[in-house]
């Protein structure tokens, strides 16, 4: 019995430490993940952002059909890289009970491609391009205030 408890409680205490992190991850409406990229210093390269929205939610695309809607927007602001181009995926035109016209939205998983180029002063080696993804999500019955997710892209700059 004492052996069980001596093995179990350290495990339980570790799990309890993890709970806030697990809850935080699960309450995010949208998550972003990236893969490391190998790039040549003077050449543009493409990094992919894997974006996942919670089931039941949709987010406006970069060009929503209504001027009042808040577009999804990606920016890169850290690490010594310039944005050459951003390829937002084409959204789906979906009709909702609250809109007269279909809205152009993302749902589920989607990818955003961003073409970057290192600034001339960026040193070769491992670098981190840091950015933000701003979005505004809704369900069929409620909307959430605009949020911004920070992300990093590991770049092996050669």
């Amino acid at each position, binding site marked *: *019995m004492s052996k*069980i*408890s001596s093995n*179990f409680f350290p495990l*339980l205490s570790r*799990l*309890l430490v993890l*709970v806030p992190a*697990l*809850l935080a*991850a*699960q*309450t995010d*409406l949208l998550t972003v993940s990236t893969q490391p990229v190998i790039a040549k210093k003077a050449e543009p390269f493409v990094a992919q952002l894997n974006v996942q929205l*919670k*089931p*039941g*939610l949709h987010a406006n695309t970069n060009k929503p059909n209504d001027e*009042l*809607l*808040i577009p999804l927007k990606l920016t890169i602001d850290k690490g010594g890289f310039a944005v050459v181009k951003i390829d937002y995926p084409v959204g789906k035109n979906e009709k*909702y*009970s*609250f*809109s007269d016209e279909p*809205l152009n939205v993302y749902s589920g998983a989607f990818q955003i491609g961003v073409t970057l180029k290192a600034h001339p002063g960026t040193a070769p080696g491992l670098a981190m391009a840091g950015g933000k993804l701003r979005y*505004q999500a*809704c*369900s*069929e*019955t*409620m*909307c*959430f*205030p*605009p949020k911004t997710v920070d992300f990093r892209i590991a770049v092996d700059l050669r």
Partner: protein
Amino acid sequence: MYRSIFIGVSLLGLLTSCGSFPDTVRAAVKPVSARKMAVPFSLKDADGKPLVLADYKGKVVLLNFWATWCGPCKIEIPWFIDFEKTYRDKGFAVIGVSMDDDGWAVVKPHMAKTGINYRMTIGDEQTALKYGGVDSLPTTYLIDREGRVAAVHIGLVSKGDYVKDIEQLLSAAK
């Protein structure tokens, strides 16, 4: 011992499985004994006049947090226009609190377009925090004649639900 371990693990499972976004919540009108005072605020309305919640004591108030970018909120606006017309003379008022970052620049044109006939103000972070942070829109509070929160509706609920609650609160003894 095993029982407490089982409870602990079950609780952990429950906590980690409840991470989905909130669904629409329609809270029924609370009994008077369970109501708490609505947090006071003072903001400016569309004409620049002070809009003070305390001035509404004696009236039933529908306090609606919304935004122009919120689709479900737009469904409710014609209902609220209708409620303002129907119940105004019975001691009822709608107050809209827009949570638009761009403020009056986007709200005033929307008010004109939709024919909003009730008082409007622009909410700020402080006001939202007083009302639990207003994590999703629409969020609507029904406040009784004594200034107490009688019901909270989070997300889009039916017009019939609002009518039922408003009439119940209006029929309560003054």
